């Protein structure tokens, strides 16, 4: 943390994002119960458009035409879109869904892939039933890994049809194989460590060793990978929506907002609409990437050593390096 201030930035951003998302979800019912009428931290409902909307006249070349898009102002901090909807409201309303997708889909993928990886790594003796199961898991993983993840997710999402749940399923189905590989590799390293042999010699059963000694020691790389992955899943989800086979248009979601405003040709006359949605994706992914990178530095002893060496002035580090060699 001290060595890399960006970790702190990422951490604070993630905390803020999570707080805002929880408020968007939690405040309306709690607020209504408290004060007796609907309450929200959103300035307007995400799909609310004033009718008739305040219009402004846009002139491009020889054409002049009215549009509901308003540039950012004190009333609409991020401006309004072509239907007069407040962009800040829409971006914030999309936050819970996008964040939940990032966290939950990745968590499910990590759990599913992780469990399979544990089995494949821990019981890999050839010529046994358990070994056959682990080989089957690995070959299945290979089949899934043979396709680029985005293409496979798109194919599945397109097959299942448009909707939030099909998109989630599509990502889930493409995301678990990476965790199988990651966890299996880590398990293979850990299970040949002398402390696992020592635990066996102390009379612990296989299952107890797996749960108490192996899982505990692979947790760190998996946590780091998970944190970095939240951002990737979010981008993939938005990409699927952007292409137009993801979330329906009436559900506020960053990817489909970008897609919708782009099809409405708003980049020229109202760039703030696309930038607001795209910026939200950018900031969220950046936050998780910074946090993930920082976690890796903190949790991984190898890069921790590298950090410690980088922190020492080179004149001091040189003899220390010689001594180690």
């Amino acid at each position, binding site marked *: 943390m001290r060595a890399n201030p960006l970790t702190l930035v990422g951490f604070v951003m993630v905390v803020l994002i999570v707080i805002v998302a929880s408020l968007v979800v939690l405040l309306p019912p709690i607020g209504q119960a408290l004060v007796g009428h609907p309450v929200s931290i959103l300035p307007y409902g995400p799909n609310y458009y004033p009718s008739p909307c305040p219009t402004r006249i846009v002139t491009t070349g020889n054409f002049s035409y009215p549009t509901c898009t308003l540039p950012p102002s004190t009333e609409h901090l991020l401006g309004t879109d072509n239907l007069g909807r407040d962009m800040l409201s829409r971006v914030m309303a999309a936050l819970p869904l996008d964040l939940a997708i990032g966290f939950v889909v990745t968590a499910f993928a990590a759990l599913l892939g992780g469990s399979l990886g544990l089995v494949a790594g821990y019981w890999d003796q050839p010529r046994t039933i358990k070994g056959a199961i682990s080989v089957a898991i690995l070959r299945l993983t290979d089949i899934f890994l043979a396709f680029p993840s985005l293409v496979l997710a798109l194919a599945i999402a397109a097959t299942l049809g448009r909707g939030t749940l099909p998109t989630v399923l599509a990502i889930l189905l493409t995301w678990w194989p990476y965790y199988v590989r990651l966890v299996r590799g880590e398990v293979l390293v850990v299970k040949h460590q002398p*402390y696992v042999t*020592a635990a*066996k010699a*102390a*009379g612990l059963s296989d299952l107890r060793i797996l749960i108490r*000694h192996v899982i*505990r*020691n692979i947790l760190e790389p998996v946590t780091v990978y998970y944190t970095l992955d939240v951002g990737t899943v979010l981008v993939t989800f938005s990409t699927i929506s952007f292409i137009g086979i993801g979330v329906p248009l009436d559900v506020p979601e960053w990817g489909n907002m970008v897609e919708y405003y782009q099809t409405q040709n708003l980049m020229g006359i109202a760039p703030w609409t696309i930038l607001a949605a795209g910026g939200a994706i950018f900031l969220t992914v950046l936050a998780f990437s910074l946090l993930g990178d920082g976690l890796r530095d903190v949790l991984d002893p190898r890069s921790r050593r590298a950090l410690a060496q980088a922190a020492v002035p080179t004149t001091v580090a040189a003899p220390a390096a010689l001594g180690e060699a």
Partner: protein
Amino acid sequence: MTEPVLQVERLSVDYEVGAGTFHAVQDVSFELHPGRVLGIVGETGCGKSTLAHAIPRLLQEPPARIRSGSVRFRGIDLLKLPRWQLPRVRGTGISMVFQEPINSLNPAYRIYDQVAEAIHIRRLRESGQAPGLVSPQEPFDYSKPKMPKTGEVLLKPLVPSRGPASRRPTFSKDAQDLRVTVLEYLKLVRINDPETILNLYPHELSGGMRQRVMIAIALSGRPSLLIADEPTSALDITIQAQVLTLMKELMTEIRTSILFISHDLGVIAEMADDVGVMYAGHLVELGPVDQVYRDPRHPYTKGLLRSAPNKYKAQGPLPSLPGSVPNLSRLPGGCPFHPRCVLAQADCTKDPGPKLTKAVDAAGPEHLAACYYSKEVPGIP
């Protein structure tokens, strides 16, 4: 004679790797009686560690494969036991101290958790809540009287310590009780200030301290057989002496049977009652330490003992055996030592090689050697 704790009969272990089959242990037979310490000595790669790991079946199978033989531990044939029952023998029946104290403790847990885990398992088995195949035994009657250690008898339950409160709150009586037992075992292995050590992680301890903790964990199962696989070879020389002294003292207190693996003839002389000498996977000589050392009856043992520098350096350059250790995948036929042996005759090259039998003219009946010409060994210069 009491019934042996451990009976190893014609045990053979192979490693099957890409380059071929390596016969790491060949036809090794020995018995270990209650309260005795059997030392196994031999050079690097002679199969000592493989033997040590094969007994509680801790070998990685594959590449290792136990080809034949039997290992009877208190009446149970460990090699016939289904794999899932093995954990029930380990810990409370057979426990082990390993070569590398650096990596033998889980880096993710505090010392307390790791010692407590072993004690917890033993208690579950003692109370019948978890199945154990062998009941943990109270210390054996020793077949050979030993000097009792002067001073406090550390195995007795200690009064709960009034030291600084642990950072880990202990609520229930069971947890408090467990903590006292953990402290007892840490005190048993002469750890100063065990209250502090409890809350430390393994990386915060030195190698010697870690090995002490490993010994505490191994002993906390109250095993009938303790296998010590070169417990001091990874430590530096002063710490080695400390750990050996500790183990020597513990032997008189705990009186467990011990299988002590080492490459150091001096350490074996110090620690063991009996000694087995291994060469290229074969047990070539077996007998009481004083007899084997005074009057070796296998040419290899003779060669080993003859190269002790502080005893023989006055007589000029130390002798060396001609040739080198055979490749374990292509052992010579007959006696594995015959290509390097000054006594070798034509019959030494014929299969099967010499069996471990009573050495001719040896001082006692327990002195065994696998050599047709054991009578002539004392004549080798």
